């Protein structure tokens, strides 16, 4: 399936919107208006490319904390994200219980994420198992950082999916660092995709800075999964262009030159160039889109600022399912 021009532009728009929103979060943090931000800057191509290869509403997404662009692609609005940044009551992911970027969108089959890395991976396999049991043809896309693939949890999840030929795509967003720790201290293989051979399923590498390449790679894996051919591990390689989080100072472990070098591979720039090359975008249109993105982000921040905080005692429930009252 080749992407229509309209879809290509839509994908670019989502990347751009996610980027502007993410940048604004950093600004809010510098202004002292939010306590914490963890960024997806540099990873938008992989995230948007991947999500466009699955069917929204039918397929499942089990994301991790950097997947802001993925969530925007799935329909999360900027203002919903800002609610969680500010810890405001309308935060739809957790009612402001969780830190920002611990995503959840039940209506879109996006599973709630926690902070301990790799815990999501077995869930993806379990969802895949459920789909298989029911004879369905939905697929599960789950993401993780390359560092977190060091957890036994990831290994076990992939192993189970491989043994049972489950419809799961294990996407590793390899941004080359786990906070300060570089890939070579995590693994003795060159790529997280190389781990697949030890687990008996295909392992694919893709350039994670190029949105349409990611799309193609994931789509192939998705189609296989949908056809009952089982799971795939895909590593999208890119670079974390920001510090790990707003609590991090990355100057202690990497040079500015290294970071600057990778800024030339900024996925937004690459996608923009690709669209311009294909004649699908002009500089002017880009400026318009960019302005629109900034405007939407402004709106979102405004809505966030106006929204109320939860009441303290709202935190008393729901601990158990029977306390849930969405009435």
């Amino acid at each position: 399936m080749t992407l229509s021009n309209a879809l290509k532009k839509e994908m670019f728009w989502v990347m751009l919107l996610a980027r502007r929103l993410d940048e604004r979060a950093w600004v809010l943090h510098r202004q002292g208006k939010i306590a914490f931000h963890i960024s997806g800057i540099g990873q938008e191509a992989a995230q948007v490319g991947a999500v466009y290869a699955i069917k929204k509403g039918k397929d499942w997404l089990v994301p991790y904390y950097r997947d802001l662009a993925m969530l925007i692609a799935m329909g999360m609005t900027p203002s919903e994200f800002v609610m969680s940044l500010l810890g405001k009551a309308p935060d739809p992911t957790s009612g402001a219980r969780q830190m920002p970027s611990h995503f959840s969108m039940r209506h879109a089959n996006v599973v709630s994420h926690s902070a301990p890395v790799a815990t999501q991976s077995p869930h993806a396999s379990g969802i895949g198992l459920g789909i298989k049991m029911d004879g369905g043809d939905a697929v599960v896309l789950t993401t993780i950082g390359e560092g977190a693939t060091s957890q036994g949890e990831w290994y076990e999840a992939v192993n189970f999916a491989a043994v049972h030929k489950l419809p799961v795509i294990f996407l590793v967003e390899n941004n080359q660092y786990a906070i300060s720790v570089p890939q070579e201290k995590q693994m003795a293989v060159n790529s997280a995709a190389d781990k697949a051979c030890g687990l008996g399923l295909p392992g694919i590498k893709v350039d994670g800075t190029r949105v349409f390449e990611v799309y193609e790679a994931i789509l192939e894996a998705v189609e296989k999964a949908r056809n009952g051919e089982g799971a795939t591990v895909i590593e999208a390689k890119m670079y974390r262009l920001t510090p790990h989080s707003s609590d991090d100072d990355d100057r202690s472990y990497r040079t500015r030159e290294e970071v600057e070098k990778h800024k030339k591979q900024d996925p937004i720039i690459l996608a923009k160039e690709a669209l311009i090359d294909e004649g699908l975008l002009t500089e002017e249109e880009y400026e318009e889109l960019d302005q629109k993105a900034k405007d939407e982000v402004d709106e979102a921040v405004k809505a966030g600022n106006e929204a109320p905080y939860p009441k303290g005692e709202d935190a008393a429930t729901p601990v158990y399912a029977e306390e849930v009252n969405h009435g």
Partner: protein
Amino acid sequence: MAEINLVEAIRQAMDEEMERDENVFVIGEDVGVRGGVFRATVGLFDKYGEERVIDSPLAELTIVGVGIGAALYGKRPICEIQFADFIYPAFNQIVSEAAKMVYRSDGAWFVPMVIRAPYGGGIGGGLYHSQSVEAFFAHVPGLKVVIPSNPYDAKGLLKSAVRDPNPVMFFEPKKGYRLIKGEVPEDEEYTIPIGPAKVTREGRDLSVFAYGMMHHYALQAAETVAEEGIDVEVVDLRTLYPVDRETILESVRKTSKALIVHEDNLTGGYGGEIAATIAEWGFMDLDAPVRRLAGPDVPAVPFSHPMQEWFMVNPDKIADAIRDLAAF
């Protein structure tokens, strides 16, 4: 009514629930053709097939983590951990994920699942096939912790656990699997609500709080001392978490003396919570110190018979503790 043993009651509960709801499935080590190392799943593989009775890889994290995913999807997994001693690899999935899902998603996501595990000593299992692990979980909001002491309760509680929309830790006193027998209705379907403790023997002189195998022993000890004129009330806690504080305090109000019994190590064990409950909200009713009788603070039940006997709480030790407290 038919007399069956504890493990058969558990098997029946699973069988009936699998028959009732096709979303219910079993996953664990050797639960398939083997029917479980304690034979709790015997016959289910033949009846429901390998898609619903899944021999997992030898990995407890997988069993529970995959179970959580399936539950999020809409299934009703019953995860079997072969021995409670082997639940720790799944600790992260249970405590970080299953327990916190409802809260962290503000009620959007549920994890309806049961985690079954045989626990407890006295069966020659040594350090790693004898452990009691309830205290680790009866401290985790979002979980329910259930321990049955007899076939009737086991069946009714397990059926409720399968239907519960929350993760339920269901610990089974393995020493009682074949030893503890009891009447269970044959044709009539029933469940027992998760939550309430139960006064299983009325008495005036003191209250014994226990669960699982120790509850079975407590009833025996109560009979022994009854002949000596000590009238013991026995409470089967059944659901350890959330705690049924009301039933506990009501019993203390009546007897004014409390003895808590478990086979797990004393310090930091579940008994501390019951003692604290009584010391805080039942203090004015107390006529004597709140006593705990529990396993000693060594890592677990040793293998060699004399050492195992030394470790284990048994009816004699309970009777002694009752006499002691009654004499206070």
